[in-house]
């Protein structure tokens, strides 16, 4: 028994949260962290009590007219966001937790939890979700490639073989032979196109060999053929100074943005502008589609990478990412990267 009390004491003493225990609104006990905080910030514990008190009154006040108060009344704890050291260059954000220990003796505790830690936890959770998503996307991609190989490529080659077999029948007239060979040729051609498109989807070799602008032009042409939407690419081709990583990011953002515009925006025309300056490069993807409410789509929804992923990718290389959109006024995605 003595040992457990000692453990509890140790925990109280070394906790990374600042814990203060009050009786009748007077501070009677505080741990090391609380003492440090009080000393460093010149903090008066009475101030914290007042903050807690007013927020308790707020929550329990019947004039508050809030429905959820019924639930809150049952809560033994109340947590209050509070910012300390407001006037200093780095304000400290805390959650203050008000906890009643003994209502009759009027003993309660105030615990200050660093909000940075909580944010960090949030971040970790988000990251976990992202990793899961990436894994799933990776598997999905492999499945797609495998299906494409099986359904399109194998099928195309197979029908071409069947066609060649038909040629062995000698009863065809010259005209018929002519058309039949044309068909076989076109089947093989389709298959070739599909192989090329798959290769392009997986990793655009144009990007490595001819640079970003050429790759964007190829991409635009293909997506235009697939959708009927006019996609123009304009810009200067000076992308030599860019690292491969940044070129890839720019390419993927263009791809994702065009796909978004085709999928959701019902655009008639999409314009891609790639302009290199002395010390920075900008990529703009402008569509004349429906537009959307940007803040609604900014958070990670667990299913599609979308905007958040674009933002993350750009940030990784010290770039800036911006989306301008209004309902009915189209969308402009802008990416800017510094160049050495």
């Amino acid at each position, binding site marked *: 028994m003595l040992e457990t009390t000692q453990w509890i004491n140790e925990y109280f003493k070394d906790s990374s949260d600042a814990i203060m225990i009050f009786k009748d609104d007077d501070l009677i006990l505080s741990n090391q962290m609380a003492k440090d905080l009080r000393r460093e910030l010149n903090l008066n514990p009475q101030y914290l009590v007042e903050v807690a008190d007013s927020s308790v009154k707020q929550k329990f006040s019947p004039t508050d007219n809030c429905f959820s108060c019924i639930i809150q009344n049952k809560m033994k704890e109340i947590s209050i966001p509070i910012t300390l050291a407001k006037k200093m260059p780095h304000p400290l954000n805390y959650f203050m937790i008000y906890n009643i220990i003994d209502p009759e003796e009027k003993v309660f505790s105030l615990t200050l939890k660093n909000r940075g830690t909580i944010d960090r936890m949030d971040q970790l959770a988000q990251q976990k979700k992202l990793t899961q998503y990436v894994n799933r996307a990776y598997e999905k991609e492999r499945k797609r490639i495998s299906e494409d190989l099986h*359904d*399109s490529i194998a*099928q*195309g080659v197979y029908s071409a073989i069947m066609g060649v077999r038909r040629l062995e029948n000698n009863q065809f007239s010259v005209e018929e032979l002519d*058309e039949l060979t044309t068909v076989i040729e*076109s089947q093989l051609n389709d298959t070739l196109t*599909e192989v090329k498109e798959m290769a392009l989807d997986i990793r655009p070799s144009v990007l490595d060999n001819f640079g970003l602008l050429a790759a964007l032009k190829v991409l635009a042409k293909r997506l235009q053929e697939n*959708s009927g939407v006019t996609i123009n690419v304009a810009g200067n081709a000076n992308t030599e100074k860019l690292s491969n990583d940044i070129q890839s990011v720019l390419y993927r953002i263009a791809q994702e943005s065009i796909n978004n515009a085709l999928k959701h925006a019902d655009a*008639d025309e999409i314009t891609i502008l790639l302009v290199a300056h002395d010390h920075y490069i900008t990529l703009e993807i402008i569509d004349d589609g429906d537009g959307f409410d940007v803040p609604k789509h900014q958070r990670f929804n667990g299913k599609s990478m979308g905007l958040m992923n674009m933002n993350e990718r750009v940030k990784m290389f010290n770039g800036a990412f911006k989306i301008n959109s209004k309902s009915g006024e189209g969308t402009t995605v802008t990416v800017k990267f510094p160049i050495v």
Partner: protein
Amino acid sequence: MNPEQLNNPSDYQLIVNNIYQNEQFDFVGVALQSTKSPHLIKWKFVAGNTNEKFRKIVLRSGIGIAGLVVRTGKPFWDNDLNRYEYSDEMYTPIAKSELLQSAVAVPIISPLTKLVRGVLLAGYRSNNKQVSEQTALTLSQYL
């Protein structure tokens, strides 16, 4: 019209116009595979179009409704085109650009080789009109 006579391109426009006038379809189109390499399949003759996007579409054999018909040589119809997303196998650009809800497509078969040289497609924009095998039959009778 006899398929043997379908060598003059404008005949297809006549067929398309005919169907558009006689039936209730909102959109009718014919896509043909080019006889010259690289044998692209494009929409050549349409009626009831709301925009010019069809001119830019290049069909891919095996993908989308028309692509499937070109590859299999069998008629195909679908009453819920909206459910397809851009990355789907059955995504059809013409349905998206012409806002079709349902469509039916039949192959245009070359009389010489009995092979598919194109596709005749017709569709509705309103979702209370359904297409069926019967619609496919009606459509193929115009060829």
